[in-house]
């Protein structure tokens, strides 16, 4: 019988899935804020005729943004108060990540890892900074929509530009995250984000320092 060990608590799993699902909604409704869905015939897909209606996609975007922002803030404060910093990058992580990526594709051996691998810590930081940029710019964009509020046009131009470009980066990171999990040697990690448990043998091999 396969023995397992706990990798993610229920709170971590719920937070992860809330961020993931609201993130998907944000990506769909966010791309809907660009005039894309009519031009690219998304509106012709059965059930998606509404997708080019900015009024609808904007409400979805606000709602998903509220959930996403609350979950990200929860995540930061929750782990800070519990003094759980194992996923934050450490000195030498960039070099180790390159070796880790090579190992992913069979070029070289996996390094001696703790609960999180160096490349996981780096990716977490990149996704985290991207999310925070989206949240900060998004909040400023929301604020100016409240009424006849006139902020400096150049500030708004930069906020809109950074938000849109960072949204594109977020989508690529999301796709890379999903693609990486589909790689054969990463697949055993998938159950850990559902049941919280990971195969003990896999953990001992890939995270011996945990």
């Amino acid at each position, binding site marked *: 019988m396969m023995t397992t060990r706990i990798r993610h608590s229920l*709170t971590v799993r719920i937070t992860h899935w809330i961020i993931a699902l609201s993130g998907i909604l944000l990506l769909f409704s966010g791309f809907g*804020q*660009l*005039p894309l869905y009519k*031009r*690219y*015939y998304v509106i012709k897909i059965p059930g998606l005729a509404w997708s080019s209606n*900015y*009024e609808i996609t*904007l*409400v979805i975007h*606000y*709602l998903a*943004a*509220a*959930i*996403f*922002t*609350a*979950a*990200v*803030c*929860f*995540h*930061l*404060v*929750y782990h*800070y*108060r*519990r003094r759980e*910093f194992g996923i*934050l*990058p450490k*000195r030498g992580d960039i070099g180790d990540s390159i070796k880790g990526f090579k190992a992913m594709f069979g070029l070289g051996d996996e390094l001696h890892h703790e609960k999180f691998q160096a490349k996981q810590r780096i990716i977490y*930081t990149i996704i*985290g900074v991207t999310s*925070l940029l989206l*949240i*900060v710019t*998004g*909040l*400023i964009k*929301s*604020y*100016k*929509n*409240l*009424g*006849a*509020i*006139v*902020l400096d*046009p150049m500030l*708004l*131009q*930069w*906020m*809109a*530009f950074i938000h*849109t470009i960072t949204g594109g980066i977020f989508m690529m990171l999301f796709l890379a995250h999903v693609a990486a999990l589909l790689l054969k040697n990463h697949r055993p990690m998938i159950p850990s984000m559902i049941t919280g448990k990971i195969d003990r043998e896999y953990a001992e091999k890939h995270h011996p320092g945990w």
Partner: protein
Amino acid sequence: MTISRRTFLKGAGAAGLVTLAPAVRSEARIGPDSFATLIDLSKCDGCDGRDTPLCVSACRTGKKDIFPQVDKDQLRDYWPQKKYEDWSDKKHLIDRFTPYNWIFVQQVEVEGEKISIPRRCMHCDNPPCVKLCPFGVKHKTAEGPVYIDHSLCFGGAKCRTVCPWQVPQRQAGVGIYTLWQKYLPVAGGGVMYKCDLCRDLLAEGKTPHCMVSCPKKAMTIGRREEIFKKAEGLKEAQQGYLYGMDENGGTSTIYFSPISFDKINIALTASHDQKKTGRPVPLHTPENLLEKQSLWTQLSLIAPIIGVVAAVGLTRSETVKKEKT
């Protein structure tokens, strides 16, 4: 540079503070001394007897250097669509908004009287066209005008969709998207154009072209408070009607008419020929799209607080549980 945990957390904390900053930063609302205009329909006769109303011809002459200069080689379909919007062969049109015609005069008969209505951008107080531009290249200034940065706009035309009067108009084959459309024809469709209230002239203390040229002095510009007072005065003195005070959440363009705008709008809708002049430019009473959704906006703004409170609450209850065991 190595990011230590402490530095990272400091950075995260600073980012968190920035997210809350807009709520406490003082906002610059539309000031009482910003510009507003009054269009008196009891004076405008559409320049009866002339081929082109003088406000229209003055705008076209005064703004001709800003109008799009199209390189025909750059006119390409909006892939995968089989169309593009080109007005360069229709510069002569003066009865609708086009990239070459930023003001036009509607004429309609109501209760046996001919009404002439000069139409241009309303320069809204909370303009959805500005606030929803994905690249922020449409601007609303505290002085009043709403204008487009033509050098950065790449013509998605979302501003036209969200404008209750469909004022901005697109010209294909010009603008920044021409740099990449040959290699990557996936984004952009030209540049949007509309009235900018001659903000360059206003900055020099001068009056917009359309207003200077009006022989009936039907259009006046001034400080918002003073124009609004004047409009209210006209309404009271002539038992007339105002349009633009509340429409789309308030605008900087106020129309005065001795006949109700509801009646004018019904007549406009009945006489509108979509084939000839495109989508109608009504005198309806649109609600501001952004203000309609303000509850959702507020929810997104308080989300950081919800997250922080939840985290503090849960960690506290976890500590209490641990202590009990």
